[in-house]
């Protein structure tokens, strides 16, 4: 349901701020349907705060996160909570995590965090756990069971026996196209925990999993991939309404595998190419994904963004907030049993910038 600008300004009483940081004027539906009351949560991801030296940080990435926080603060009614989807830091440094958390502290509302590989591979999550919290956990909110996974683990041999120093390991994992990289995985210990966690949840309870990497296999060379994805998918199979929301890929992606809906969130830092634009290797980008518009590098926030999610009827609809671009909504469609772009899903509606090469 849309809302005109005047009504929005009246509601927020923040005319000046809204003029400076325009937010999509979407009124959130709070009608309630069935047993799940309508609610929304905000989602910010992949900030990649990068230290140059001392108190100097890369301005471009800082501005992405600052802008997302400012825009998210204008959402009304307020989302119930926020998620941060991982890769707060670029090289896992305390300075980067601290600076990222400082920017995030301006966000009004409770924030929960998912860890990304850029946060992890310097000290293996030590500082993260001191400052932010556990690497995997679950919580319940208004009839929905939410699970946060640490999906960016890998083989012990790669983590513990390959690199001369923690920073060498961090730099190796930070390079997306590194032929000496290693595939992400959730790992058996965490999968055993997940099994136990889900055992107490009724099968008609909506379950939403937050992970950094896709819990599906799209393109291994860039780790758009989780090695043991099938094991996690098997645990989600009994649930009538299961959803996985992931970061890492810095682009709009969505998919449906059996009963599980997959949706990616945008980065605030920079966009990544779709795997098809690397002409030397095949990829498995989900066929139903309508790509985001090809980035215009001359507008540094183009093809970045943040999003809010509504949980109407227990399935997710992601409202992508895309600065310098058209906002998009990808929502689960009960009729087709798949997530759909609300505007561009039909081939005849697609536009030239959605062509990537």
């Amino acid at each position, binding site marked *: 349901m849309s809302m005109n600008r005047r009504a929005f300004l009246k509601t927020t009483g923040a005319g000046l701020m809204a003029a400076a940081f325009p937010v999509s004027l979407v009124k959130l539906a709070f009608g309630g349907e069935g047993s799940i009351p309508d609610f929304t949560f905000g989602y910010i991801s992949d900030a*990649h705060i990068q230290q*140059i030296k001392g108190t100097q940080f890369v301005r471009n990435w800082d501005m992405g996160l600052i802008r997302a926080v400012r825009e998210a603060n204008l959402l009304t009614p307020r989302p119930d909570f926020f998620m941060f989807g991982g890769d707060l830091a670029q090289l896992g440094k305390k300075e980067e995590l601290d600076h990222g958390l400082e920017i995030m502290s301006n966000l009004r509302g409770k924030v929960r965090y998912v860890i990304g590989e850029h946060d992890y591979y310097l000290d293996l999550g030590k500082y993260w756990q001191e400052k932010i919290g556990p690497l995997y956990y679950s919580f319940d909110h208004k009839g929905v069971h939410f699970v946060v996974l640490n999906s960016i683990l890998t083989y012990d041999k790669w983590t513990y026996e390959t690199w001369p120093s923690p920073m060498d390991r961090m730099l190796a994992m930070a*390079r997306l196209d590194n032929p000496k990289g290693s595939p992400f995985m959730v790992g058996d210990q965490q999968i055993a925990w997940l099994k136990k966690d889900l055992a107490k949840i009724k099968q008609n309870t909506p379950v939403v999993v937050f992970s950094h990497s896709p819990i599906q296999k799209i393109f291994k060379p860039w780790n758009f991939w989780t090695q043991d994805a099938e094991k996690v998918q098997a645990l989600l199979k009994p649930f009538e309404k299961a959803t996985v929301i992931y970061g890492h890929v810095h682009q709009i992606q969505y998919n449906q595998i059996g009963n599980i809906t997959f949706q990616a969130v945008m980065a605030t830092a*920079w966009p990544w190419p779709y*795997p098809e*634009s690397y*002409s*030397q290797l095949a990829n498995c980008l989900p066929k139903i994904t309508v790509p985001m518009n090809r980035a215009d*590098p001359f507008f540094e926030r183009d093809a970045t963004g943040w999003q809010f999610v509504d949980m109407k009827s227990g399935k997710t609809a992601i409202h992508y907030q895309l600065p310098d671009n058209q906002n998009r909504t990808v929502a689960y469609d009960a009729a087709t049993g798949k997530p759909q772009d609300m505007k561009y899903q039909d081939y005849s509606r697609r536009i*030239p910038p959605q062509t990537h090469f």
Partner: protein
Amino acid sequence: MRNSRFFKSACLAALIGLGFLAISFSIQADDFTEGDLKRWNQEFMSVVATGEKLFHSSELGTNKVSCDQCHPNAANTHPETYPKFQQQLGRVITLSEMINWCIQNPLEGEPLPLDDAKMTALLSYITWERRGVPLAPGKH
């Protein structure tokens, strides 16, 4: 005496002439071997490797940002579309100019001279990662 000196000079001239002839045969354009091909390819691939290193290093700019942060495997650089009308600049440019735009803006660095060995290395790596894709100059 005079005849013998003339004879010696003539022999020397003939030898020099033959020498030139031999050299000119050896640099005939179509006379190269498998070994030559291998060496030339190695020369090219060593420059590609230099380009790959530069592309993944923070030495081109001043803010530690590297090209691969936005362009893994040099993807989304579409070298086959250059030269093209770069609508944001309002003129037709080559890929080298776009590389310099990236060095100056996201990397906050100084542009490279267009004949700089580093520029050649970057072009070599970017084009190598796009090998086999048909040329499409001007494409958007």
